[in-house]
């Protein structure tokens, strides 16, 4: 039987990283993945990642996927696609369906990095065509270039729901609403804010009552729920839609590990059933490791680190790594992982109601309830420009482990003291208006304001990731954080630059008193 030192199941962020670390240390390594394209979720993730340089922050997910694939190929890792592992039998026998045959392989070590599957919720009509998982919508759009529908309601205001809502908007769909049964937005506020400022309404404490339709869904009704998640009659709201996206969480896909006899535990904070793993991803079964979402739902950034650790641990298990090197490499990765697990959204704080930022600022309630920081609250986080010229306005209001804005500024205008700290401007404003911070912020939460461009007008530079990109001279309206029209606006500049990595910068001219409010632009025709 064909035998490998290391068999990795799943070519996503965790699996690829694990294979790379194994192969680096001389392990004969193969990855099996059931999909026709590698990368797992990475190739669907067209947004820029949070974190710091070590976590490949500000690089888009698919780009990271390409880098990992190239690195794996360079190290001689075999990546076998369209290869569904159908069983992990005793003695680490991996049975794989490839084409029209099943093949048996032995791995001296096996790393299971199968990721997660989308949760479902049931309501009247949830089995109609057109009710789909948000991940499925993402796959259709970002892997296959197919728009899932024209008018979409998103159920779920966690990161998946928010990110996919934004991508639906980018794909040209109308997102009629984002609803969530929880009383507060669960995902990053910056993800919510970039959706809300395009005019999408948020309905927290709301759930779907029913979907209607014949051959496919044509309407959906949501209603408010009380603290016990019971719906309140009389609060129904009906939307005509052709698509309902469900983004109601993920469940680790640990069936292979269960089949292999690994002990699993049910841990709600990790998303459900997960294998019992040690700090190096080792399961209760000898030589079988787990990494990534399969051992607890987190971000792709953490999955990559967990994968690396498991890959190194597998090398050690097979005698390919010396202990000292192993310890150092693991310590380095563990430090990177622990950085990612800090802040308001740390896995250990899931579900906590946070009232103050680490800086002692009262968090924005509007952000949690409506998806945007309102005009009154934003003053707690930013200050109006007092000096003439350019000034970055950083509307980053939650403690998230992320710091590309600091690293990218050529004049060191931005301070991020600890990785989760809110960015602060240096007292001396040396901003040249280069816009790198605007383009690099994964949360699209930085705006450049030039408070006085003459005639009582100001310029506001926005990150803009929609097509077509408005042209200089276009007329339109500026929308506020809440997505409502605040004033007329003119495009004074539209910048595309490879340094901005596809986040184009749109500079609009607005009445000076609106500079603190105008955060999105719609050209006249679109209003």
């Amino acid at each position: 039987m064909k035998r490998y030192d290391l068999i990795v199941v799943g070519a996503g962020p965790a699996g690829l990283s694990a294979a790379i670390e194994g192969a680096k240390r001389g392990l004969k390594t193969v990855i099996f993945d059931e999909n026709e394209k590698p990368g797992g979720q990475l190739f669907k993730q067209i947004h820029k990642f949070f974190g710091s340089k070590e976590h490949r922050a500000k690089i888009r997910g698919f780009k990271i996927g390409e880098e990992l694939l190239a690195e794996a190929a360079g190290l001689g890792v075999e990546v076998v696609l369209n290869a569904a592992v159908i069983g992990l039998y005793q003695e680490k026998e991996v049975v794989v369906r490839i084409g029209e045959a099943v093949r048996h392989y032995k791995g001296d070590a096996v790393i299971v990095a199968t990721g997660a599957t989308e949760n479902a919720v049931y309501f009247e009509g949830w089995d109609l065509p057109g009710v789909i998982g948000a991940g499925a919508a993402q796959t259709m759009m970002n892997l296959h270039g197919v728009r899932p529908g024209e008018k979409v309601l998103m159920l779920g205001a966690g990161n998946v729901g928010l990110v996919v809502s934004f991508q639906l908007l980018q794909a040209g769909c109308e997102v009629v609403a984002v609803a969530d049964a929880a009383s507060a937005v669960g995902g990053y506020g910056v993800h919510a804010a970039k959706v809300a400022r395009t005019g999408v309404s948020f309905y927290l404490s709301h759930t779907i009552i029913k979907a209607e339709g014949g051959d496919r869904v044509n309407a959906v009704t949501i209603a408010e729920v009380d603290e016990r998640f019971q719906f309140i009659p009389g609060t129904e709201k009906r939307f005509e839609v052709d698509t309902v996206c469900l983004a109601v969480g993920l469940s680790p896909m640990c069936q292979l590990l269960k089949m292999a006899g690994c002990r699993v535990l049910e841990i709600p904070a990790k998303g459900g059933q997960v294998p019992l793993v040690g700090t190096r991803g080792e399961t209760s079964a000898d030589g079988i490791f787990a990494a990534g979402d399969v051992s607890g739902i987190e971000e792709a950034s953490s999955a990559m680190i967990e994968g690396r650790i498991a890959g190194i641990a597998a090398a050690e298990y097979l005698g390919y790594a010396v202990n000292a090197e192993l310890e150092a490499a693991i310590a380095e990765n563990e430090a990177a992982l622990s950085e990612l697990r800090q802040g308001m959204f740390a896995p250990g704080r899931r579900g906590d109601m946070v009232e103050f930022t680490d800086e002692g600022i009262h968090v924005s309630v509007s952000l949690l309830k409506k998806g945007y920081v309102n005009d009154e609250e934003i003053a707690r986080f930013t200050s109006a420009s007092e000096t003439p010229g350019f000034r970055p306005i950083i509307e980053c209001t939650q403690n998230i482990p992320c710091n590309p804005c600091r690293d990218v500024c050529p004049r060191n205008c931005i301070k991020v003291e600890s990785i989760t700290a809110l960015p602060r401007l240096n007292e001396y404003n040396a901003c040249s208006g280069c816009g790198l911070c605007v383009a690099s912020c994964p949360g699209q939460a930085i705006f450049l304001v030039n408070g006085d461009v003459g005639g009582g007008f100001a310029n506001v530079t926005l990150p803009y990731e929609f097509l077509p990109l408005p042209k200089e001279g276009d007329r339109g309206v500026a929308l506020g954080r809440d997505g409502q029209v605040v004033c007329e606006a003119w495009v004074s500049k539209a910048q595309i630059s490879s340094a901005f990595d596809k986040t184009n910068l749109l500079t609009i001219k607005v009445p000076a008193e609106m500079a603190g409010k105008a955060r999105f632009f719609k050209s006249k025709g679109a209003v």
Partner: protein
Amino acid sequence: MGAVERILEREFVPADDDGVVVCRCEEITKGEIRRAVHDGIFTMTEMRRYLRAGMGLCQGQTCAKNVKALMARELGVPPLELEHATARSPMRPVEMYVLANEEVAD
């Protein structure tokens, strides 16, 4: 695993949304699942066997969590007390002629 005396004190109370399908593959409704609990079906494995909920093409990948929550509510226990059903190969549906065709890997 401790001893479980199979007693359920509460009566079955019909609900308006009992007709909603919970297991899509096998078209099992909320009402059927709730009623089965009152029939004495106390574990997820038994529920699969009794109603086929979670036994279809997706093998419970979609509905297991919801069936579990529903059963737990009906039993009046935290969902954590219910064990998921066993994971069984093949992890993905495989045509018979493919499973039959074992290629010896070189």
